[in-house]
């Protein structure tokens, strides 16, 4: 979706302000919001792409006004409610008022290290051949899905070069919808700064994105 999460190239946010000796978390509630989000993914049985969509799927003004973990927390509440795991009246009162919905799994302390160690690899086997090879010229398609996508607006319609064929990976646009992993070939595509930002842009800059095959079309 063309939401406020797609920030590349926007102006007006001011300088980047690094915080010296920054702590990992800035408040106790951030610790809780972080860990609850990780732990709830098991009973919630949602995938990473659904999580990302739940975070970005809100009015732009709201997204930009929220802190990072506020966005995480809002998405967590939304996903729990959508799946009927938690109800509005429970959130209002701060207690469980209804019987729990049966869930397949929860995260036990003994599993934490293993779950983190395993992570979530997204590469999948395929028999299909990759359409592009390193060095091919490609154009990022002009697409504007209202659902989740990982093709940022600033490269749409721009021409770049395949730098690397990465492998066949879970396709977020499908996975976020619960429509299956639908693995697709993934490429690192390099764009020159001037192609993205115009003739006055710094000629020493190049930017790459990792783009799935359905995002790309050949350039003759």
């Amino acid at each position: 979706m063309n939401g406020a999460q797609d920030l590349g190239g926007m102006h007006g946010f001011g300088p980047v302000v690094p915080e010296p000796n920054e702590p990992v978390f800035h408040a106790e509630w951030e610790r809780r919001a972080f860990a609850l989000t990780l732990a709830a993914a098991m009973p919630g049985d949602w995938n990473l792409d659904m999580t990302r969509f739940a975070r970005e799927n809100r009015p732009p003004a709201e997204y930009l006004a929220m802190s990072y973990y506020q966005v995480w927390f809002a998405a967590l509440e939304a996903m729990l409610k959508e799946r009927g795991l938690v109800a509005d009246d429970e959130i209002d009162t701060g207690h469980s008022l209804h019987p729990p919905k049966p869930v397949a799994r929860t995260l036990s302390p003994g599993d934490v290290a293993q779950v983190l160690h395993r992570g979530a690899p997204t590469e999948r086997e395929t028999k299909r051949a990759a359409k592009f090879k390193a060095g091919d010229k490609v154009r990022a398609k002009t697409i504007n899905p209202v659902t989740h996508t990982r093709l940022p607006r600033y490269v749409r319609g721009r021409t770049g070069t395949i730098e690397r064929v990465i492998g066949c990976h879970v396709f977020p646009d499908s996975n976020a919808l619960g429509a299956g992993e639908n693995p697709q070939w993934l490429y690192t595509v390099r764009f020159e700064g001037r192609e993205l930002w115009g003739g006055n842009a710094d000629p020493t800059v190049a930017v790459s994105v990792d783009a799935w095959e359905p995002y790309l079309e050949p350039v003759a």
Partner: protein
Amino acid sequence: MQLRTRALETILLEKGYIEPAAIDLLIETYEKKIGPRNGAQVVAKAWVDPKFRQWLFADGTAAVESLGFSGRSANHLVALENTPSVHNMVVCTLCSCYPWAVLGLPPLWYKSAPYRSRTVADPRGVLADFGVELPKDMEIRVWDSTAELRYLVVPMRPAGTEGWSEDNLADLVTRDSMIGTGLAKSPKDLK
């Protein structure tokens, strides 16, 4: 937010969806155990061990796993080599993708709108915010983490560190130098 997070945690506990010890362990892991010191060890090893360096650039995931760093948010790790002619910078314009297993959780600025909006269009301006100025003819290569690949910048080894141990070298490797918003410290910075 304190009240809202506590309320939700209570509900999830009462329903049996979460186990408190797992919550504590997740927090402890990312607050105390996993951090940029992991990545610094990777870089220091790449500086002293040519075979490891070659492996790291050929198959970052396997090379980093050999040091015990793997899994969540580094299942597909790509190491980027800074050279006298190319400087790499990593960003996630769409969210906050970051190689947790080697750098820990990202700093606030990495997740902020200023960094996410400007890095792809004006990386030299962003570097200036960090007090870094690079030669005008150096290529600035920005990597937008739009898929599940996670990028780790291997900064150039500072001069005057010949014969240093990996441990001592790791002290020179800052978190920002592995994102590309900084350079490795020089020996005189340590004093």
